[in-house]
């Protein structure tokens, strides 16, 4: 099949950027979306032109590198699918696709479809961990954890940090990402000691990075390739409120 691609091209953070149109010809339905772009890039490279820059690495939906908007939908909008696992059979001959980077003040464009998501790293650095010294852990079975709690913690921990939540949110909010980590650690007994200082530190950093507020649109959950539930935002809010009521300050 043949497709028309309108791709955002931007040389760097300070460049204005604009859309550029490409024809993707002879696309196979068995190709992944990124492989379709690889072929477009091969032609650009041979013509001595700059290929379209997009981030990718594992191409199996777990590293969290890839991600951009396809026709207004983060990762292309298939349920629980990253754009590297999106396949061309979801499209038809003659389709026009608008391909844009994540747009958020906290994710400045590096080049074309690649954005800088280091804000996520700094949110985790602010407190997204259990302070345990290597070698000082007790036996792993010393604290039983109910299967339900372990499973819920896992559901939150499944976040791959791709940024689709921020991208799809009308407010460019990072509450799902931040809430997922807070919820993962806050549910487990190991995370209790730092539970309230953690939520304060991480949400402060989230604000400092310039992410927007939550309006409970729930687009984040719908577009999250790992199906992180919005419940994590509720628990984060509750924990922050409790932290205030307990008079703890970080």
């Amino acid at each position, binding site marked *: 099949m043949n497709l028309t691609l309108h791709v955002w091209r931007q040389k760097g953070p300070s460049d204005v950027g604009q859309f550029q149109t490409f024809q993707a010809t002879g696309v196979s339905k068995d190709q992944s979306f990124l492989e379709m772009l690889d072929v477009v890039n091969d032609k650009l490279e041979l013509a001595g032109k700059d290929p379209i820059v997009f981030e990718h690495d594992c191409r199996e939906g777990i*590293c969290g590198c890839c991600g951009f908007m396809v026709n207004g939908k983060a990762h292309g909008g298939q349920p629980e699918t990253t754009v590297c696992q999106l396949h061309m059979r979801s499209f038809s001959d003659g389709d026009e696709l608008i391909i844009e980077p994540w747009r958020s003040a906290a994710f400045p464009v590096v080049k074309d479809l690649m954005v800088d998501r280091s804000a996520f790293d700094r949110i985790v650095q602010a407190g997204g961990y259990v302070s345990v010294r290597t070698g000082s852990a007790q036996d792993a079975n010393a604290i039983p954890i109910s299967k339900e709690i372990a499973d819920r913690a*896992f559901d939150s921990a499944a976040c791959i940090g791709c940024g689709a939540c921020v991208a799809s949110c009308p407010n460019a909010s990072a509450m799902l990402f931040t809430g997922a980590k807070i919820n993962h650690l806050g549910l487990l007994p190991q995370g209790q000691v730092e539970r309230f200082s953690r939520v304060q530190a991480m949400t402060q950093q989230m604000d400092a990075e310039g992410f927007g507020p939550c309006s409970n649109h729930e687009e984040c959950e719908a577009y999250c390739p790992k199906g992180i539930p919005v419940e994590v935002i509720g628990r984060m809010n509750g924990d922050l409120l409790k932290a205030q009521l307990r008079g703890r300050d970080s």
Partner: protein
Amino acid sequence: MTLQSNAPGGDIETAWDRHRFDMKVVNPANKRKYTVIVVGTGLAGASAAATMGELGYNVLNFCFQDSPRRAHSIAAQGGINAAKNYQGDADSVFRLFYDTIKGGDFRAREENVYRLAQISNNIIDQAVAQGVPFAREYGGLLGNRSFGGALVSRTFYSQGQTGQQLLLGAYQALSRQIQAGTVKIFPRTEMQDLVVHDGHARGIITRHLVTGKIERWAADAVVLATGGYVNVYFLSTNAMGSNVTATWRATRRGAYFANPCYTQIHPTCIPVSGGYQSKLTLMSESLRNDGRVWVPKNAEDAWNAKAAKVGRHPGDIPESDRDYYLERRYPTFGNLVPRDVASRNAKLVCDAGHGVSFEGNGVYLDFADAYERLGRKEVGERYGNLFDMYQRITGESAYEQPMRIYPAPHYAMGGLWVDYNLQSNVPGLFVLGEANFSDHGANRLGASALMQGLSDGYFVLPYTIGHYLGIQGPRKSSTDWGEFAQAEEQVTDRINKLLSIKGKRTVDSFHRELGLELWNNCGMARNRHDLTTLLGRIPEIRAEFWENVSVPGSAGDLNQTLERAGRVADFLEFAEVMALDARQREESCGGHFRVEHATEEGEARRDDVNFRYVAAWEYQGVDQKPTMHKEQLEFRYVKLTQRSYK
């Protein structure tokens, strides 16, 4: 030069304890006087950087990804082994040690593997304390599952993403140290060269992938945790960015590359669907617990798009026309033979024209029996997420028709040679995880890679590097040393050369060509003749690459083509050593199968008399044959036997 393993002799059970006592210890107040470079932020790199930061060292940690959380350790699905014996099924440190040595086909160093088995238990404790959400039973205790090559249930797991959960644990520990200021992180920064001064590894040269800036970094020691090299095949289950550059650059600076021919080909991956394919996707090996592997008995029934063979729909092929070849050849283990055996047999039937798939490279993995035995619902609960992934990629439903699978390169057992202290033959250069050669011998068992990466990073290196630093004492480091200037110049020259060729072929076309040559001649089954042909081909491809590659753009900018070109250039040099190693090893062992060295039944035949050694290759220059050094392997605790799964 004789390679000294530096492993403590005597009783293996107390070896690591005694060694720790005998090593020098750096005074806590002095640790901040030492700077250590860690390249890579996977399980090994992140855990090492975090632990050393915690101990008080100054750590500089580099990764080429945009965040340390993205290293390819994240993609490991299955699990992590530990000798906890929580199931009470007679597991023990010795049994894990024994299984790992045997699974590796008796080509690993006993002392290292024993230490790995001992430390395995600490890893689980550490991970749980960090909040890694391992699967649990209803009583709240940790759950285990069984994995290939073991008779006990010792694998800890987090659904299908154990790698991501363990990596996030290490990443969070690392983040804590970054916040504390003990570790400085440099993402989007790729190591381009190693700097050796006075015979010791003292720094690296990096390129910043966004600005193109070339920088020099000096330190007291350099740690490489840069993963494996199976992307040399182009198509593999590795991430697109996984590469050999860091370890190969170290090889060019004098480190020995050990056992490069030991590569693992994983049997259950989704077959290639077309010439545009960029990577192969692994489907968990657990599928073989309930799926039956078969191919059409008659070659004309096999669908092969490339050969214009329509074949027959699998549902229309009657039982009598199906060949359940694993069950036929291995009645005892059936579909559950180890990875190397399953992979080799898939290749055999496909080479004989029975393969089903786009290029005839595929076998059926059929769940029809499982549906009858367990019901669709139960099968869906066990494998539903894998079936979904399969459908996303192939558009076919495993509920309606058999899956198609084919082996794909997955893991590199070979790597830089290291001693018991994980130090390479270049003093001050330490190598961890998949990047070193040490613990898996000729074949790695499932759920052992995560164990090794974390063992090296959390529990081994932080001690052994202290010994080295303690002996050296605080030293002056300077990026003004001549070796830095020289290395930087070479890096810049190479980049400029790549950009100036302006040829007519893409970087990927060379990579694909190299990969296909290796896959055909140094893949699942190898022979002397093909390897010799391959050794002729590689320099030709390399020569054409340096004359005809097209790398647009500039050096002072984000240039993904340039990044790939540098990595492929290194693969083109490395591949030759891999082929040489495969050719010199006149035996079959683990992932290295030489058709000349098979039993009458076609099974691998080791030669313990002549090849019970580690082959470590010393670089002599491009187009020069590297020199091979041997480390003889002694087995004091495990009796060497022939593996049989009949």
